[in-house]
């Protein structure tokens, strides 16, 4: 028998055995689908979050707020300090009036406050930070600027973006650990289902042995059944994830978290990887479950 014929035979027999024990098979498939769904959901959300964080990091700015008492000399020194290390792109001076206009645009409901004399927004310098900026040097540089005369406060977007990136990394790790744990549990479920199915076939296995079937031929359909359950679980997980994304896109409106799910879907390589991972888990479960089983029926009376 050629390998191709054997694979064809395994497929047919595996499909038959899955149908024969369809309830148990369905549970195994759903268990593996759940684990892959959790893993792929985490990958999708954190992937989009990482994408967004990267985009924000490319647009990160340093803002130096000046004191009311800052002199023209102080302004010149600050501007010079911002330009000096070569870590900044465009440096822009924002006057009090412009700051007020921005405030009005950003918070139209607070226009009364903006019009009153009580709101005195500080003058500032804004500089875009280049991605190549050295992290450690940047911190020192920032402290030096903060210590310059006429400087009230220095804000750097990098701080919270770095915190966000760390949080996303932690969420991704935790999600993947949970997904992996569920995958192991699913593999054990498949192992149990395959063993159960194999015992339903003991009589036939005995006949196969008697007529001279090799162990490869006897066990192949069960390994194939594990593989098929895993692949089916992986595919179902991706379909449900896609439906989740579609459903959220339809209902989320302009919610701030919308892009996290509705942004890019998992890449084809990631999708294929997840389905293969599920298939491998199914195959491994089947292999482990039957590795030490002799699969022998009771002797003829």
């Amino acid at each position: 028998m050629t390998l191709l014929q054997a694979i064809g035979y395994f497929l047919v027999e595996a499909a038959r055995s899955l149908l024969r024990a369809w309830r148990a098979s369905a549970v195994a498939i759903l268990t593996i689908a759940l684990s892959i769904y959790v893993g792929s959901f985490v990958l999708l959300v954190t992937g989009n979050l990482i994408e967004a964080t990267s985009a924000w990091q490319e647009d990160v700015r340093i803002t130096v707020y000046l004191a009311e008492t800052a002199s023209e000399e102080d302004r010149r020194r600050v501007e010079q300090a911002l330009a000096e290390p070569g870590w900044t792109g465009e440096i822009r001076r924002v006057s009090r009036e412009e700051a007020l206009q921005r405030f009005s645009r950003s918070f139209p409901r607070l226009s009364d406050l903006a019009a009153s004399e009580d709101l005195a927004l500080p003058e500032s310098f804004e500089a875009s930070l280049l991605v190549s900026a050295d992290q450690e040097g940047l911190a020192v540089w920032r402290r030096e600027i903060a210590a310059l005369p006429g400087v009230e406060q220095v804000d750097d977007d990098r701080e919270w973006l770095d915190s966000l990136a760390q949080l996303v990394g932690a969420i991704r790790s935790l999600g993947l650990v949970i997904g992996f744990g569920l995958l192991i549990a699913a593999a054990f479920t498949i192992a149990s289902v395959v063993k159960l199915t194999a015992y339903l076939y003991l009589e036939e296995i005995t006949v196969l042995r008697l007529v001279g079937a090799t162990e490869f031929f006897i066990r192949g359909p069960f390994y194939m059944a594990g593989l098929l359950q895993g692949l089916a679980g992986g595919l179902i997980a991706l379909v449900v994830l896609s439906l989740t994304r579609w459903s959220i896109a339809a209902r989320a409106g302009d919610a701030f978290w919308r892009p996290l799910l509705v942004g890019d879907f998992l890449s084809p390589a990631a999708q294929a990887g997840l389905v293969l991972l599920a298939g491998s888990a199914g195959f491994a479960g089947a292999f482990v479950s039957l590795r030490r089983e002799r699969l022998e029926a009771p002797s003829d009376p």
Partner: protein
Amino acid sequence: MIRFFEVGKHYPPAQTALADLSFEIERGEFVFLTGASGAGKSTLLKLIYREELPSVGQILVNGRSVASLPERKIPYLRRTIGIVFQSFRLIPRKTVFENVGYLPRIQGAGRGELERTVERALERVGLVGRERAYPRELSGGEQQRVALARAVVGEPEILLADEPTGNLDPRLSIEIVELLRSVRSELGTTIVMATHDHAAVRRFGGRVLTLSRGRLAADRSLEADPSQGVQESSDLAPNDAPGLSTTRDGASPDAVAADTRSDDQTGTEAER
């Protein structure tokens, strides 16, 4: 074809299923294997198709030592041996065609070849036209014919039949033995049939190996008696069959008979 040299089979702690068995079966021979329940008939057959390993001694099948055959080569030995059981061992949810077609399938036969081979086997046992039937739709005799077709589909060199008529009435038993004999004459297959069927052995005659307490009590030839075969089955004592012509091992018929009739406690426990 089949040679046993001082073969013994023991099960722990101290049960002896077979002891000191030596005999030879030539290619194309038809041999009845008789003895009381538990005498070791099934164990002997299992040793031939390597379901069991001998504890001592040597078994040669086609010149090759069966005991020293590596595990991975056992399937290839079994492809040369057809096996039929008393309980038929048909798969209920498979059709006759599928039940018979196991061997050609595992040997990689294409659809056309599979159909031709199965058809030929069914023709041999007179079951053409029942390919799509399921075992539950067949009579006991027909089921045993399917089992026989499955055993001969690969045109084996050896056919082992373990009480193939045990579940059948005397008329059907005779039909099954006749089928086995026709397989032998058409294919030249060596046939070893373990049986309790006293009448069938007398009717067809030929070489009879008789086991008692796991030992070879008699190896003799019976003359055929076509008038036999309508009575119910019973244990065949080695010297109560008419036409006893020779004893190959020189055992005294009286001694053999006494041995066989005795309640073989050891063998009954040991046979599996």
